[in-house]
């Protein structure tokens, strides 16, 4: 029992996590590629044309996963940040820092793909309805988080200050998610939810879920790569980093 616990905590140290992450990254990339290809295949070649929207609906294969990821990554980021703040784990602060750019990217994608879909379907690029506005605030929150962290020199302080900002910003996530229910928005309600069966044809849903999985795997792979870089940078004066880099140098 206690043995198991210790094993888990072992991976909470950058030194132990670094090689583990290195071994996992190729797998996540591979999975991302597999799911991505499968998702795009199902989405563009198998899934039927939508009765109302024609071919234009196919943007959902990117838009919906990107929107999900933008919110989900924020939650994960805030979770890691809060964990780092509460228990002073070095690793969790690094994870939060590593996740932020990917989250910002997905938020940006979600906004743009939404605009590209909105123009032909709704008849406008952008409306100031609750869903769109709160998603835009999410993008600002990501940018603020990244800017704050990069403005503070001491990485420990940067982690903690970023964590507070991330936790404060969490209030925005339920607002985004429930905005379509709380207000009369132009944006439609969600097609997939836990409480009711999806109002979508099966193949369309399959394509969307595959694409979502691909985004997920991509996000993990990229975040792990980034966290490895952050580890090397922050711990560059420690023995293990020197050994790691020294070994690499010898191999070449």
């Amino acid at each position: 029992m206690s043995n198991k616990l210790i094993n888990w905590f072992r991976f909470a140290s950058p030194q132990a996590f670094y090689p583990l992450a290195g071994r996992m990254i190729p797998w996540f990339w591979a999975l991302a590629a597999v799911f991505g290809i499968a998702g795009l295949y199902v989405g563009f070649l198998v899934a039927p044309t939508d009765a109302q929207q024609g071919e234009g609906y196919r943007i959902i294969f990117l838009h919906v996963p990107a929107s999900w990821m933008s919110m989900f990554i924020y939650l994960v980021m805030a979770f890691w940040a809060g964990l780092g703040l509460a228990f002073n784990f070095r690793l969790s602060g690094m994870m939060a820092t590593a996740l932020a750019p990917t989250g910002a990217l997905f938020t940006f994608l979600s906004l743009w793909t939404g605009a590209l879909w909105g123009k032909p379907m709704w008849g406008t690029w952008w409306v100031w309805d609750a869903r769109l506005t709160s998603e835009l605030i999410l993008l600002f929150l990501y940018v603020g988080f990244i800017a704050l962290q990069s403005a503070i020199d001491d990485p420990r302080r940067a982690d903690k200050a970023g964590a507070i900002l991330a936790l404060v910003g969490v209030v925005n996530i339920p607002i985004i998610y429930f905005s379509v229910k709380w207000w009369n928005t132009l944006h439609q309600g969600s097609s997939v939810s836990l409480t009711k069966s999806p109002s979508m044809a099966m193949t369309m849903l399959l394509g969307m879920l595959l694409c979502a999985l691909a985004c997920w795997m991509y996000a993990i792979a990229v975040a792990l790569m980034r966290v490895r870089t952050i580890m090397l940078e922050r711990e560059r004066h420690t023995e293990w980093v020197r050994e790691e880099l020294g070994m690499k140098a010898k191999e070449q």
Partner: protein
Amino acid sequence: MKTRHKRIALIIGGLAVLGLVVALVLNAFQSNLVFFFSPTQVAAGEAPKGKSFRIGGLVKEGTIKREADGVTLRFVMTDTEQDMIVAYKGILPDLFKEGKGAVAQGKLGEDGVFVATEVLAKHDENYMPPEATKALGDAQQRAAANKAAVEATSKTVKQ
């Protein structure tokens, strides 16, 4: 005061404030914070007068007509309880169809006709291939549309 007592006092105070916040938010949601108004709300005089606002509802079947000038479109927006005539000059979005949801921005004219400057299509969350929709049959389709309309209305009215 002891540290522990102080903490308890702060927590109680925090909960009280939280309760107040929730009460205020719920109070606000009972009134009219909406992206668009339904024809019923407009008929009840809840919409702003003499100023641009949005109305939302379903486009009534068989009411889209082009006027004599060849540019202006007229159609009826409904929430199944109240109807409203909308006049619009301009390009319609792809999704704008009879029996489907739409949001129009414009002003209410003296004659009760809503003169729209912009028409947006409101899409529902259903994604279905055409064959499946056809297979449902006409009657069923209309029933579903009606149900959606009622849902849309009850949602609007609730807010």
